[in-house]
């Protein structure tokens, strides 16, 4: 297993370098929307400026570390029939996707951490000296869990492609709703109470917002425990969904175009 993974990782690493320009451009493009949202909030409440800068910088970081694109790939492969090549391999296709995610996110990490350090020299709001070791530990656990949930969520939708043709449109709708519920439009504390309540029970908060809340200290004590509890529940749910959909999907699959 370990050897297989090291080969997969190396392969995906080489693949990534072929598209490095696209990756970098795509990555910078994804930062624009959070930055605009940040400016909106800085306008609404100028006193909280530093808090917003920190929140949205953390948001950009967490967004990159948890982003999931597998639904697009799976949908295309299933539609075009090239997914058959993956099915006949003796190693479950999900491992290819996981390896790809690890490689890309490692790249993001290598770029974003020095960038954060550099920016923190000029922007005091980004300095991290207030954060305790326990917070860091919890943050990394929550971040890992967030990446896993988001990946599984995306993969679940990708597998639905066996039955539904326009699965990316459906996924896009969920993404749009999740903007509110995951803390990307506003920090949880600024959401209307109704949205805040339902976001607690839905998976979206645990895909992006929850790790940031730990870092900013806006979630504390028992709320952190409940948060991890719900995150674990959703993680298990999507694991099961991927497992079941995979089995049912293989029976359903009729490779298009052979």
């Amino acid at each position, binding site marked *: 297993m370990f050897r297989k993974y090291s080969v997969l990782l190396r392969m995906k690493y080489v693949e990534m370098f072929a*598209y490095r*320009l*696209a990756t970098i*451009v*795509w990555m910078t*493009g994804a930062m*624009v*929307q959070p930055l*605009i949202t940040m*400016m*909106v*909030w800085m*306008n*609404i*409440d100028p006193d909280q400026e530093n808090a917003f800068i920190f929140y949205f910088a953390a948001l950009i970081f967490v967004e990159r570390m948890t982003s999931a694109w597998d639904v697009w790939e799976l949908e295309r492969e299933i539609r075009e029939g090239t997914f058959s090549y993956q099915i006949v391999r003796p190693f479950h296709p999900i491992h290819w996707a996981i390896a790809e995610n690890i490689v890309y996110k490692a790249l993001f990490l290598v770029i974003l951490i020095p960038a954060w350090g550099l920016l923190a020299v000029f922007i005091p709001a980004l300095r991290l000296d207030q954060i305790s070791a326990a917070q860091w530990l919890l943050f990394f656990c929550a971040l890992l869990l967030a990446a896993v949930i988001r990946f599984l969520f995306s993969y679940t939708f990708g597998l639905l492609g066996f039955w539904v043709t*326009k699965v990316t*449109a459906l996924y*896009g*709708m969920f993404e*749009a*709703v999740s*903007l*509110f519920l995951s803390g990307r*439009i*506003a920090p949880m504390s*600024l*959401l*209307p109470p109704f*949205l805040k309540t339902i976001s607690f029970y839905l998976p979206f908060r645990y895909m992006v917002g929850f790790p940031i809340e730990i870092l900013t200290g806006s979630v504390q004590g028992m709320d952190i425990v409940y948060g991890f509890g719900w995150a674990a529940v959703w993680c298990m749910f999507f694991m099961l969904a991927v497992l079941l959909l995979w089995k049912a999907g293989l029976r359903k699959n009729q490779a298009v175009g052979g």
Partner: protein
Amino acid sequence: MKRHWRIFCEFFRTCLVEELEYRSEFLGNFLSSLFGIGMAILTIQVFFYQTDNLGGWKYADVLLLLGIFNTLQGLIDFALRPNMSRLLQHIRMGTFDYVLTKPVDSMFYVSFRHLVFWRLIDVLLGIGLIIYALIQKHYMPTIMDAVMFFISIGSSLVLIYALWMMLMTTSFWVIRIDDLSFVFNSFFETTRFPIGMYRGWLRIVLTYILPAAFITSTPALSLLGKWNGMTTILSVVLAGLFLWISRRFWRYALRSYTSASS
């Protein structure tokens, strides 16, 4: 001009025929457009849950701005976006040679050949939102407001076209990227909110260098009766300037184009 109009009508007709083969998708597309604008309105409501103005604009004003934004976005998705990836493919495969040999201006051809009609739903929804916002505000634009609005929306269309073409022209050099259009999206997102929201150097950049301010804010202010003759003239001048630059850039790119595989 007249000839180009006739050719455009011909593009329009062929694309319409093509699209009518997929009539059954109309409902789904309509629902997704409706959903999109609904989410955008909800976003603004989340902001206004905490405040009563955004960069000096009230709720109804921001809705009107969003209406204009949605309309323009619909027009971009209708006429410009479908052509971006096709140009890239032409350049990569070398089939761009066929475009060049056609007896029609190549820049015109590559920017309007393919149209996606159902995107016009977004235009209609945007116009609906503009009207709704005016009713909310109890404001009836005067004739002069309307004139100013149409002049400034005209320049914003030209500006969008020019900026879009400049980006599209870079594909002669950057052929590794599948779709450059999201670079434009990132810029265009900034026009979703009033220009008064941006501060310092960013506002200067978004007014004069990447003229986001003239794309949605100026038309919105005109329609609300807060126009200013100088700004409107400036928007026309800038639009002309950018169109000229994009034209020059296209010509320059054509000169450096060496077909593929030869």
